[in-house]
Every structure is written in structure tokens, then in C-alpha cells.
């Protein structure tokens, strides 16, 4: 009976994520066809799945969803980064919004195109790489996402070209009162040898209705190229997101990713970095500031597949009220990956007795000449620092705020784009 119930649950859930018809790009590509076949054999992760031990999907999968439609937005300025000169691409419930998007700075340098508008050579490049970095065959979320392959963006920097300005991917979601809304989209970023660009992706809700987002990003950083990518998750407290992001780094390349979570109800960020060429460098930075009953799970994996690579991972979180944070970070050093430098750290502050953090740093090392470290800490705000500040006239609220900002500063300081850094400082200041 239990399995029957599970089957019903799954059918009900995926029903809300299936496109009504397959047209345009989707009908021309093999991946959605393949995914549609696979879905019937894939399961929703349950409580027996080790990687999902602390994140239960019941509340997410037991709802009835309808795929999100585009909607009316007149003003996107509240969601822009103040003073930032960037190309802005807007998606409404995952669907490209041409009237709100503008590529100005990178028009001559980068190939930037909504996936739905790819043609000819760009479409062929997309088809070659899409689905090659993230596995579609064993994961129900990535398989479902493949059915919506037409939603999202393709960005490629040709050889030795540097982006002129960051690209801001702005995702706005809006649900309805009657039924919950599903949103799916994907990104493909390719940096050809010697090229470089920056992407900022932000997620916001319009209104208070429930949306469930299933997103996916594949990144390929070729020899001596560089991509930096920051995500700001700021949706409303009714909305959820399951994300899969994976980057493959070739020789002498570097990739940095910031995952900054402020809003949302249930979020699961799956991040995997594969250092697949010598002398690659990866930076994985995260910040999660949670309150209410928010649940945020950051699952990361760094594969050191080749020698002489460097990875640095720092995730910091503050949990208030009854919120829950999960950090699961695995560093996997392959046998041939000698001279690896891999560092990982997860630091947490609990602001209440009812907040939770589950943290599991893992190292798997098969090479013998490596430098690796990992660690996790959880505590309260430093009481000596609190007293010091209060003895200098700051009331409890101000003192707390200052210490929270200080805790987050290590993360914000590592962000390259000055305007984003400033904007985050403001978000953090007003968060609790």
C-alpha cells in the first residue's frame, strides 16, 4: 500500500511540472524526449535516501501544481542591484520576458540568448553541452527540468573574450490563490579558453502565493578561462526551490560561486564542482540567513579529479526562530589528484533554542600528497562581544545587528562586484 501511495504522490507531483505540449526548441532536441521516457522509473527522494535525511520533501511534493504562466510586470527596478551596470535578462515564472530584458554591454562580446531563441550554430553548441554536465537519467528533478529545456538562458564567451559587464538573470515568480505554481528553467554557461565573464542570478516573488521552482545550471570553464557566478535567493516564505548546479573546470581555469539565501520556505541547493584539469581553482561560498520555519539545505560536492587544483569552500549561516539549516559538503580527491589543496568550512550561529543546523563535512581522499582541511562550528553570538558593544551604548538590537553583519562580512567581502557587495550589506542589515 505504501508504494501505491508513493506512486500516487509522484504522479500527482510530476503532473504539475509537465509542459502542456512540446513545441519550439523542445521538439527539436533529444534530451526532453529521453527525459520523458525516464521519468516513469525515477522516484521522489524519500526518508530512506541518505542524501535527503534532513530534508523532507513531503510538504513540497504533496501539493497540486500548475505550470507557471507569464504575467504582467511593469517595474523591475526594486529587484535591480542599485548602481550596477549590467545586462539584465528577466524571466517571469521561468519564461523569458523580452520586453523587460536588455543586452547592451555585452552585445558585442558574449553570446547571450534565451534558450527558446537559439538557432543554428548556437543551438548545436547548446545541444552538445546541455545535459552533459548534470545527469538527467537518475534524478527526477533534473529529468523533469529537461522537459522545460526551452526556459532559461545560454551564455557563452568566445575564446579570449572578456565580458564587458555582469549579466544579471532576474527571476520573478508569481503564483495564484487557487493552485500552487511550478516554475522550471535552466542555464548553460560556457567560457571558451582564455575568456571570462560574471553572472548574477536573483530570485524574487511578486506577491505571497506559493511557487515551486526546479532550476538547473550547467557550467563549463575551459582552459585558462574564468566564470564567477552569484545567486541571491530572496523568494517569499511560501515558495520552494530545488536547484542543481554543476561546473566542470578545465586546466588553469577558475570558477567562483556564491549562494546567498535569504528568502524561501524550503530550498535545496545541489552544487557540484568537478576540477577536471590541472591547476584549476574553485571557490564555493555560501550564506544563509533564516528565520520563521525556513528550511535550507546546501549539498555540495567538489571532485578533485586532476592534480595541482585548489578549492576553497566557506558556508556561513545564521538561524533564527524555528528555522533549519543543513550543510552537507563533500570533498572527493581522486587518486591521481596529487598536490591538491582543498579547504572547507561551515560556520553557524543559532539565534534561538528552537533553530536547528545539521552539518556534515566529509573528506574522501585517495591521493597521498594533498593538503586538505575541513571543519564545522555552531554557536551563539559571542556574548563577550555583545556585552562590549552594549557597554558602549548599543542596545540589544543594534549590537546583534552589528555582530550578524560582521559574521556575514567574510562572505560579502569575497564578492568581486562592488555594487553587489553593497547591495548585500543592505539586505543583511535589514534581514532580521
Amino acid at each position: 500500500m505504501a508504494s501505491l501511495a508513493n506512486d500516487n504522490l509522484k504522479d500527482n507531483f510530476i503532473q504539475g511540472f509537465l509542459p502542456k505540449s512540446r513545441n519550439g526548441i523542445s521538439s527539436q532536441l533529444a534530451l526532453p524526449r529521453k527525459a520523458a521516457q525516464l521519468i516513469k522509473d525515477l522516484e521522489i527522494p524519500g526518508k530512506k535516501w541518505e542524501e535527503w535525511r534532513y530534508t523532507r520533501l513531503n510538504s513540497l511534493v504533496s501539493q497540486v501544481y500548475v505550470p507557471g504562466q507569464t504575467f504582467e510586470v511593469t517595474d523591475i527596478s526594486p529587484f535591480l542591484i542599485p548602481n550596477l551596470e549590467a545586462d539584465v535578462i528577466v524571466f517571469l515564472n521561468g519564461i523569458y520576458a523580452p520586453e523587460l530584458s536588455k543586452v547592451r554591454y555585452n552585445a558585442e562580446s558574449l553570446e547571450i540568448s534565451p534558450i527558446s531563441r537559439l538557432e543554428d550554430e548556437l543551438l548545436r553548441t547548446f545541444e552538445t553541452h546541455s545535459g552533459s554536465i548534470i545527469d538527467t537519467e537518475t534524478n527526477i528533478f533534473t529529468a523533469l527540468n529537461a522537459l522545460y529545456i526551452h526556459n532559461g538562458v545560454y551564455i557563452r564567451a568566445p575564446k579570449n573574450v572578456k565580458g564587458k559587464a555582469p549579466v544579471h538573470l532576474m527571476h520573478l515568480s508569481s503564483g495564484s490563490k487557487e493552485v500552487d505554481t511550478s516554475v522550471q528553467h535552466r542555464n548553460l554557461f560556457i567560457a571558451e579558453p582564455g575568456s571570462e565573464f560574471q553572472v548574477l542570478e536573483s530570485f524574487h516573488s511578486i506577491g505571497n502565493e506559493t511557487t515551486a521552482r526546479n532550476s538547473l545550471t550547467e557550467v563549463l570553464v575551459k582552459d585558462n578561462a574564468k566564470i564567477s557566478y552569484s545567486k541571491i535567493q530572496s523568494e517569499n516564505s511560501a515558495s520552494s526551490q530545488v536547484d542543481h548546479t554543476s561546473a566542470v573546470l578545465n586546466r588553469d581555469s577558475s570558477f567562483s560561486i556564491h549562494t546567498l539565501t535569504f528568502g524561501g520556505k524550503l530550498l535545496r541547493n545541489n552544487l557540484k564542482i568537478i576540477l577536471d584539469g590541472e591547476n584549476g581553482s574553485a571557490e564555493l561560498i555560501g550564506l544563509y540567513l533564516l528565520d520563521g520555519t525556513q528550511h535550507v539545505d546546501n549539498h555540495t560536492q567538489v571532485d578533485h579529479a586532476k592534480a595541482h587544483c585548489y578549492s576553497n569552500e566557506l558556508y556561513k549561516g545564521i538561524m533564527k526562530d524555528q528555522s533549519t539549516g543543513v550543510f552537507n559538503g563533500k570533498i572527493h580527491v581522486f587518486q591521481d589528484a596529487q598536490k591538491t589543496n582543498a579547504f572547507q568550512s561551515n560556520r553557524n550561529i543559532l539565534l534561538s533554542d528552537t533553530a536547528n543546523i545539521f552539518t556534515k563535512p566529509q573528506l574522501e581522499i585517495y591521493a597521498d600528497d594533498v593538503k586538505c582541511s575541513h571543519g564545522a562550528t555552531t554557536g551563539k553570538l559571542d556574548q563577550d562581544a555583545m556585552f562590549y558593544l552594549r557597554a558602549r551604548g548599543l542596545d540589544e538590537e543594534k549590537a546583534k545587528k552589528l555582530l550578524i553583519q560582521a559574521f556575514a562580512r567574510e562572505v560579502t567581502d569575497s564578492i568581486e562586484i562592488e555594487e553587489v557587495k553593497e547591495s548585500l550589506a543592505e539586505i543583511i542589515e535589514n534581514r532580521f
Partner: protein
Amino acid sequence: MISIKDLHASIDDKPILKGVNLEIKGGEVHAIMGPNGSGKSTLSSVLAGREDYEVTEGSVTFHGKDLLDMEPDERAGEGLFLAFQYPVEIPGVSMVNFLRTSLNSVREYRGEKPLSAGEFLKLMNERKKIVELDSSLTRRSVNEGFSGGEKKRNEIFQMAMLEPTFSILDETDSGLDIDALRIVSQAVNSLRNPQRGFLIITHYQRLLDYIVPDFVHVMYEGRIIKSGSKDLALELEEKGYDWLKAEATV
């Protein structure tokens, strides 16, 4: 200005202060000396409002108000300042941001308008000179990576910024070399005026050569067992505490 009456305080149910009486008037400098563990630092913590201590008996009146009823930040607003024995390092909080928030919080409490960025910087640069504080220190995080002497000078610098009416210097002289001691003492002396009172907690007579007290008290086992003029400090330097301990236990 501040009147401490029969003050008892304990930590984790262990009594530390067992009936402290002390009256400090505007313009006066009082020194408290005494052996380790006699309760000197507890007294400063209790006056500043540290939560770890529980006041079990007695009262403290500050400018006519019940000090013990106030939050630590309210005490600062009322004009009380504690120069910490061990100033806390706060990574990620810049000195400038901290000082400005501190000063404007205290000003707000006193009903004064906040200083603009320009006014604040001007004041800061002026007061920094009093303690000969290296300019680069105010660009760093609060106390982070400061030497022992720099931390203590930073405390006095903050005192000069906040202009309290009553300052407690908790072993400010410990860990100071002779030059830093002179700088700190000169700074304190320059802030002395008929409206301001000081309570100086120290182990050594040395500091009192520079900041000459009006009264010297000896604390032992949670009580003030002897009070006198500055000469008492000299006597203690010469004879130690044992003769007083003997007197106290009689």
C-alpha cells in the same frame, strides 16, 4: 554622583561581593587595590551591567537613578564607562563603524542629535591624538590584531570620544609599558574635571604616581576593608596586603 550601598553579588550562586559601600563625587578619583580574587573586577562588571552576575542585596544610585535597574546600554547613556581589563576583539566590525554607532547611540539616549559623518571624523581625529593612537588602527576591526598596549589605549580613546561622567578603569595599567602608561595617564588626567569621577582598579602603585587619586580603598574578600588617602597605596606597596588581611579577619 555614584553611591554604592551594601552591594552583594554572586556568580553561579557563589557570593563574590559581600557588602561594598562606596561613594564617589564629581571630580574625585578613587582607586581600589587588593589581592587577586578580592572582587575588584566583579565590582566593575556589576556596575557596567554584566548579566553573568546576580545582585543579591544592596543598591547603586547613579545621578539619582537606580543603576541596577538599567540595561548596560542605558548605563552608558547615563554616562557610565568601563575601560575593560580585556577588551574584546570583534572581527568584521570596523572601528569607525563601531565608534560612530556607539557615539550616536549614546547621543540619542541623551537626546542629542547624531553626528554627521564629517563631524564624527573630525572629532575622532582630534581625540585620537590624546592617546597617540596610530591612525591605521581605526581602519581595522575592533581590537583585532591590536597589541596589548594598543587595546588599552583604544579603551581610553573610546572614553575620550564618549565623554562619560563616571569612568571605571579596570586594570588599565596591566600589560602597559612605561611609555604607554604615561600616555594613558596623561589622557585620563586631561579628562579630569569637577563633573567627572573615576574609579581606578589596579594592582600597582605605579599607575597612581601618574593619576593621583583622592582616595585609596583596599578590597578583600568582597568588601572594602580599608580606605585612606594616596599614601595608603604607598604603604601597600611597601608592606603588601597581609597586615590588612590579618586586621580584617580579627
